[in-house]
């Protein structure tokens, strides 16, 4: 499906490229969008540091979430006592999440 997506969509671009007019006369046309002004400064330097903690947290809690699937999908075949370690794991993660959310909520330090 992925491959078909590529195979089906690449021709669309190629056809568009063939059909559409191409005029390279105006260098201003190819400037990046800057609201009508001549671009100043580097376009790629912006770095929203304020929300960096969220992406950091994502890396860690994504792991947690999918670990939960390993447990959840097998839960019907497990004894009830097997839930306890997962709850312990979750409790630890909640602690970490509380701290992380508090830190990420303090925008001024990022």
């Amino acid at each position, binding site marked *: *499906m*992925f*491959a*078909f*997506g*590529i195979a*089906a*969509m*690449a021709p*669309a*671009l190629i*056809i*568009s*490229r*063939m*059909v*559409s*007019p*191409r005029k390279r006369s105006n*260098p201003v*046309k*190819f*400037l*990046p*969008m*800057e*609201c009508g002004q001549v*671009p100043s*400064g580097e*376009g*790629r330097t*912006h*770095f*929203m540091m*304020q*929300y960096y903690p*969220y*992406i950091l*947290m*994502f890396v860690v*809690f*994504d792991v947690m*979430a*999918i670990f*939960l*699937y390993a447990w*959840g*999908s*097998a*839960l*019907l*075949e497990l004894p*009830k006592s097997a*839930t306890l370690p997962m709850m312990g794991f*979750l409790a630890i993660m909640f602690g970490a*999440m509380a701290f992380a*959310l508090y830190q*990420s*909520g303090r*925008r001024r330090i990022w």
Partner: protein
Amino acid sequence: MSAIAPKFKLSEFIKSLLDNAFWAVLLASLIGLPIIQIVLFYIEMPVIDGELLTPFLALTWLADPTRSLPILKAFMATDMFRVMAFPGFGFAALIAAGTIFIERKMLAKLQLRVGPFYCGKIEGILQLAGDGLKLISKEIIIPAKADKPIFWAAPVIFVATAAAFVALIPVAPGWVVADIDLGLLGVFAVIGFFPIITILSAWSANSKFPFIGGIRALFQMVSFEIPLILSLLGVVILTGTLNLSEIAASQSSFPWIVFLPVGAIVFFITMLAELERIPFDLPEAESEIVAGWLTEFSGMMYGLVQLGTYLKLYAFAGLFVVLFLGGWNGPMVVPPFPEELLVGVELGPLTVGPFPGLPLFDQEMLNGTLWFVLKTVGVIFFILLPRGVFPRIRIDMLLSLGWTKLIGLAFVNIFIALGLLYAGVLGPGGLQ
């Protein structure tokens, strides 16, 4: 009459058409025909009615409608058909097109206006085709200093990833492109690709507004992935499987939204955020950052991104239906296939049939597809509706919403599911 088209000359137009036609014919004869021959010689043909299908036979059968039906049926059993047409790309694109039309008309009605009106006589039904033609004929402008390979590839890969997502959605019993055992995890893996594509395309444009939009999109998608993953855990706990078809089948008596409304709500909200729809369309907030990460896309590249977006919308709506609304399950409303067609119909003096190969689709499949489409359209309606009544949210509010409220609710949902399971309401020994 210079006002319409400045330098329009009919002769040049015809010449360009002829040029294109020439190239098309040339390419077809040089590449297409050999490919067809290779395909004909090397691909195994299905055996129909005890005869091996050869190209020659197929061609002869095409002349006879009663004999072409088996070919059609055989074709429909292939993977190619699944990928290209029915549960796969074509179907999804059709629903996506319908979605766009519905969105425009519904929003217009809500806002007391008319919406697309002139294109295609009936309420502007061909507006989408017109837009597509417009997009395909517009010049593609790539900003100077852009990272061209990534910039070109991003829209295509975006669509392809959305298509891969579509492939995981079961439409009717047995009708799914990729019926893998861990479909739900596959969904998560596929969703994880979108932020990467977004940020890469935003980076490659070498422009400020796309980059801000891309980073916003990254934060937003990434932050809402966790509540999304967690909100679906309740369903997995109760069904004990990750296979989407099995999950859909498990809801034959009642859908999971009855027991897990919290999870459904959380999933719905995260879905809106992953789809970048209002009120979560921050990456494309036009009053702040022009068009976000789409600012530099032009022409068909933009069209592809939109196509991918709507494919994604269909896929998410389908996922919601499969997980919470019971998928294809629903009362049987499709009438059974008329028996007389199998033996032949008497049309006055002459008898037509019998038609071997009929019915093309069985009754369950049609019914399932019908219910699935109905439910999906309903979900899509509710996805589209907030666009009319909510303003855009702000990024910090969005992130804190995702990380505090939604994750909390998702865990509430998990504990509800656990409670239902351990209380014996559901699960082995329970209702289901």
